[in-house]
């Protein structure tokens, strides 16, 4: 009777709980943590990973000796979908080169949201490239900062060379409903992809 005096206050439903995860990517300062904060049911938390890599791959400033230890942080939040399903949202570290050193960070994600600051389109080039390379389904969300000029979505799609089937949405990362709508757009996109995959050829 190992569990004697060890109540599980969550009851039956908690025991069956499963999780799904969605990644939020994009360059430095595009609003990843802001978005996590807007939609999360909990105060965003930070978890870390210590990565070891050969110094040859790293900036000379960091590299001392053969191996380098780097600490990479992920800000994350969660959304209770229902009693037995939790969605975790992970904001990726700003340095894209760490994304795939952290084994399995993107594996197992339903998909990703790539945030773009319309004043600095180039800061999200790399994120879009990496999603395509890793075959992670994604939507692009233009974080509309107060002083952003009003870019037409299609112009940005062209500038960033985003494939036609990938949705591009403008939103405000500080706004809960707006951030929620981006997540909804991602799930719709995943549904469409599933539907296309199921069509007979």
């Amino acid at each position, binding site marked *: 009777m190992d569990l004697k005096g060890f109540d599980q206050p969550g009851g039956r439903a908690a025991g069956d709980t*499963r999780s*799904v*995860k969605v990644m939020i990517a994009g360059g430095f300062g595009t609003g990843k943590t802001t978005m996590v904060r807007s939609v999360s049911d909990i105060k965003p938390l930070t*978890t870390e990973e210590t990565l070891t890599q050969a110094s040859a791959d790293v900036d000379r400033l960091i590299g001392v000796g053969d191996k380098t230890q780097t*600490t990479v942080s992920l800000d994350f939040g969660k*959304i209770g979908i229902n009693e037995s399903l939790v969605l975790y949202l992970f904001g990726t570290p700003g340095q894209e080169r760490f994304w795939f050193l952290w084994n399995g960070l993107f594996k197992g994600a339903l998909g990703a949201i790539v945030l773009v600051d319309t004043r600095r389109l180039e800061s999200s080039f790399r994120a879009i490239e990496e999603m395509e390379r890793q075959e992670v389904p994604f939507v692009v969300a233009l974080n509309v900062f107060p002083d952003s000029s009003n870019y037409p979505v299609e112009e940005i799609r062209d500038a960033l060379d985003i494939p036609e089937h990938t949705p591009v949405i403008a939103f405000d990362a500080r706004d809960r409903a707006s951030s929620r709508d981006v997540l909804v757009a991602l799930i719709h996109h995943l549904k469409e992809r*599933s539907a296309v995959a199921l069509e007979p050829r």
Partner: protein
Amino acid sequence: MSAPRKPSDPSGLERYYVLTGGRSGPGGSASSLDVATLVLARAAPLPGMQHEHEEILRRCRDPLSVAELGAHLGLPFNILAVLLSDLLDAGRVEARNPIPAHDAAGRGPDLALLEEVLSGLERL
């Protein structure tokens, strides 16, 4: 040859070495752990158990993600994974990986799951 000894270890690496008995990465049962893996205690802490093991069991009476555990315990993912593999091997916790984006046949997530996520998001 040998670098001068530092009086302290600001990176916490010595602490991690002690916590894991020098093991650097999880093997076997914990190698598939994800930051979104839910951990659920299946047994009460034992007297004399390593403090961190006890903490994990205490915090996982309700399912808690590896990421949340790491944040609460102040431990990086790789160190936590070693501690979790001990508990998994001893059958004291259950680990539930996130529902994958692709099934074994390479198909995307099932529509029922996506509908479930959508209706949850629409209630926000």
